[in-house]
């Protein structure tokens, strides 16, 4: 059992860098997108800023699903399962809001 935290060989350091590159880039992307939303929420630069904020959230959710939860690497059945859940949520939101927004 080895710890990457103490006395890593150059080979181990390269291995850690290679294996943690994607999680770290994902982390940076999520922080950057959160910074965009927090800035927009704090400053409210224009009237319909919520459209941009929800678009940013959609991007964050897609990154978590595809990269952090590794859906893109899963076999077709699991990809279908994970996608279907959000498909049903879209139907739920779409049909309900159609009623309220059309009144």
């Amino acid at each position, binding site marked *: 059992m080895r710890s990457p935290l103490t006395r890593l060989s150059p080979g181990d350091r390269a291995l850690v860098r290679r294996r943690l590159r994607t999680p770290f880039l994902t982390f940076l992307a999520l922080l950057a997108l*959160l910074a965009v939303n927090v800035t927009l929420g704090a400053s409210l630069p224009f009237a319909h800023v919520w459209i941009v904020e929800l678009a940013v959230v959609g991007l964050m959710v897609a990154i978590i699903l595809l990269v952090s939860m590794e859906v893109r690497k899963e076999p077709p059945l699991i990809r279908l399962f994970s996608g279907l859940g959000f498909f049903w949520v879209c139907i739920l939101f779409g049909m309900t809001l159609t009623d309220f927004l059309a009144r």
Partner: protein
Amino acid sequence: MNSRGAAHHDGAKVGIELAHHFETVEQQRYAATLGIWAWLLTELLLFAALFLTALILRVTHPEAVKLATGHLKFWIGAVNTVVLICSSLTMSAAIEFSRMGWQRAMVRAMLATAGLGTLFLLLKGYEYYADYEEHMMPFLSRRPYELHESPASRLFVNLYYVATSLHALHLFTGIGLLLGMTWMAAKAGFLARHQNWIEVYGLYWHFIDLVWILAFPILYVVNRGA
């Protein structure tokens, strides 16, 4: 032990102990992943209904929702989002270390994840305390409600407590499960038999993060300009 598909990396042996009702390790791995996704989809529908209610309240009572949102602790919510994004990084690191067979690093990453989850709950607790001090708990019948002149705001504030406390309950459960799994994962031979447990649990943790990624903008952010 019927261990098939095991592989050696730089550290501990990594693999999955084949259960008798599966034909191959890959079949067992996919079944476990599909199972956790089935559970996560039920959770998604649960939280989606709450978020949909928040959006309907925004459409039907925009002024009351904006008034109530003005009393939410926007910056604590933002910091808590950063905390959960950090915990997703440590969870991803734990999964990678488990695949590499670096058991001690994996255990430390799991403990860091649990620590960050606990920090989130502490900040959430402080936020609730601040809300209590500001008389922003309309469900307390003996305590005056700050926005009593806006009855519709009660709907949004109550929904805020239901959604955030439900998320906090999931996080609390998740921390308990994570600590239990960390205790098991620290034992010799764990990674040789149950490496995929870390990956399956990681999906749950990332999903809790995903729910908050949705909750923060829907409750705290988009309604500021309603």
